[in-house]
């Protein structure tokens, strides 16, 4: 065995995607999202895409721990719920400004992430999956017991949060661009994290934690930090989600929601942040389309999920890579 170069840690996916796809996809994606409201497609489409961007943001955050850290967190919906409830509770208590809501969401998410992450990361593999699931349920039941905020029924936000006292988010187009701006900013942040030394250690910890530890890195600390960061970004998505739907309920934290987030990441292509956005798009289109088809759409959806796992590897972007790779060679 020769000496390993740092580059080995950088390859986050089994097959490194082509240069073209890695950079063109996010640029095209964000450009398309930026012009979309001006195409006159109607509010239904803009609303759907707003929702897609929010779920995409949560999926990006999940991909950070799932794709790069190799940690299958099955309780990420809890963070989404924490953000959403921060907005829901503070709006109800007449403190519905971003200066209260954002710090509250980030702070609680960081605390919750630090506690659950510390305990969960003491285990590996399947135990980690189950424990994060159980902590997600814990948050779910806690939200259910908040009788002041609607308990199981949830609470309706009487208005969207204000931004430094100004009520700007009630305008749908403004809200759309705020969501897009947050998405781009946090996407860039995640790209920077992944490319940084910290991100490389995180990925390397997935590949070979023993070697990394012998090199003197504290893998657990890096993982915990990544888990907390991921949780905080997800909480931001939660704040946006609550403002988008103007409604918060424990259902945001249900374990099915956590499963959907994982599915979104896998669907788009695990370990590639732009994949998470595409996964969210396809997921929502699928949901909308199937729901129109039949009220029992979850039957089709469930079967589709099984099929995706059994027959496709690398998600949608992985398939595109394959096509592009073939085109270039042939």
């Amino acid at each position, binding site marked *: 065995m020769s000496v390993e170069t740092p580059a080995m840690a950088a390859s986050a996916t089994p097959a490194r995607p082509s240069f073209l796809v890695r950079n063109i996809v996010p640029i095209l994606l964000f450009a398309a999202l930026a012009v979309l409201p001006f195409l006159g497609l109607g509010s239904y489409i803009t609303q759907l895409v707003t929702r897609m961007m929010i779920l995409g943001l949560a999926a990006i955050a999940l991909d950070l721990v*799932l794709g790069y850290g190799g940690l*299958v967190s*099955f309780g990420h919906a809890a963070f989404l719920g924490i953000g959403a409830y921060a907005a829901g509770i503070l709006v109800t208590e007449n403190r519905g400004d971003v200066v209260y809501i954002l710090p509250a969401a980030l702070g609680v998410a960081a605390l919750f992430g630090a506690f*659950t992450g510390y*305990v*969960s990361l*003491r*285990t590996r*593999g*399947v*135990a980690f*999956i*189950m*424990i994060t*699931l*159980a*902590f997600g*349920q*814990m948050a779910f*039941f*806690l939200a*259910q*017991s*908040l*009788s002041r905020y609607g308990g199981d029924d949830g609470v309706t936000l009487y208005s969207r949060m204000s931004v430094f006292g100004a009520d700007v988010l009630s305008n749908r187009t403004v809200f759309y661009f705020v969501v897009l701006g947050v998405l781009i900013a946090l996407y860039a942040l995640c790209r920077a994290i992944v490319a940084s030394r910290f991100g490389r250690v995180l990925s390397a910890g997935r590949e070979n934690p023993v070697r990394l530890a012998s090199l003197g890195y504290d893998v657990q600390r890096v993982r915990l930090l990544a888990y907390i960061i991921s949780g905080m970004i997800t909480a931001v998505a939660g704040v946006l989600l609550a403002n988008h739907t103007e409604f918060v309920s424990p259902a945001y934290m249900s*374990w*099915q929601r956590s*499963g959907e987030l*994982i*599915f979104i990441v*896998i669907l788009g292509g*695990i370990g590639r942040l732009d994949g998470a956005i595409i996964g969210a798009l396809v997921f929502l289109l699928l949901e909308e389309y199937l729901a129109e088809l039949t009220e*029992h*759409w*979850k*039957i089709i*959806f*469930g*079967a*589709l*999920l*099984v099929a*995706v*796992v*059994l027959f496709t590897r690398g998600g949608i972007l992985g398939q595109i890579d394959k096509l592009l790779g073939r085109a270039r060679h042939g």
Partner: protein
Amino acid sequence: MSTTLFLVQMLNGLQLGVLLFLVAAGLTLVFGVMDFINLAHGVQYMLGAYLAVAFIALTGSFTLGILAALVAALVIGLVLEVAIFRHLYARDHLDQVLATFGLILFFNQGVKLVWGAAPLSIALPEMLSGSVRLMDGLLYPVFRLVIIAAGLLVALLLWFIVDRTRTGMLIRAGASNAPMVSALGVDIHRLFMIVFAFGTMLAGFAGVMAAPILSVEPGMGDQVLILAFVVIVIGGIGSIRGAFVAALIVGLVDTLGRSFSVDLFKLFMTNANARATGASFASMATYILMAAVLFFRPQGLFPARGRT
């Protein structure tokens, strides 16, 4: 709180623990031997309950209906094993989680399609529907006692099979080192299938037993599944003994927590505060317990031998 109430709640906790054990035993066996995380295990529990409803209505007989439901649950489990699960054993845990999650969505909606979304219930036969007087002022439903007895009996049987028979020996060997067992000439696929069928039957049995005392509704397996996860994490993944002890602990903590936490908090809080805090504490008690156990023993209370 009176002694009688406490005893009744102890029995209720025991009964929940026994049901949890039936579900968790299969889950931990399948995981221990095949390294396969099966979220759809709760589906087997739900199907057991629904099939019991259907077959009791069909045959008009409680006993016949329950037997038919057990067989049908087993058959469905085996079909799923051959069609889907078998292809997932070698995959990573993420794929397993996702595919079995898909199955949950499929079956939850499926039972809604077939039986409707409204909760169903089963009438108990006269022999089992009464209560017995256990002591002064303590009446307890017969059927709940039957559940406890049946669950303990199954636990005993399971111990006998796993600890005292040749198949059990192979199962234990498979849990420690499946490739080695295979290399020694044992048909590992057949072993896997036996283990899986076993686990499926136990979960189905739990569902059948639960059907008369709980409302049978779509998604009823999810709650049990998550509690079963808590159980096997506390007990130590892959350990049946651990699952048994942890199931009883979780059953008791959950039941007692729900009935007494408000009283407990009333000792040092105002009534209104105690009610709110008690309610949320009760629903989180099992998870707090799990966090505490993991904090001190990351491998669970009874780590299975031979696993690293």
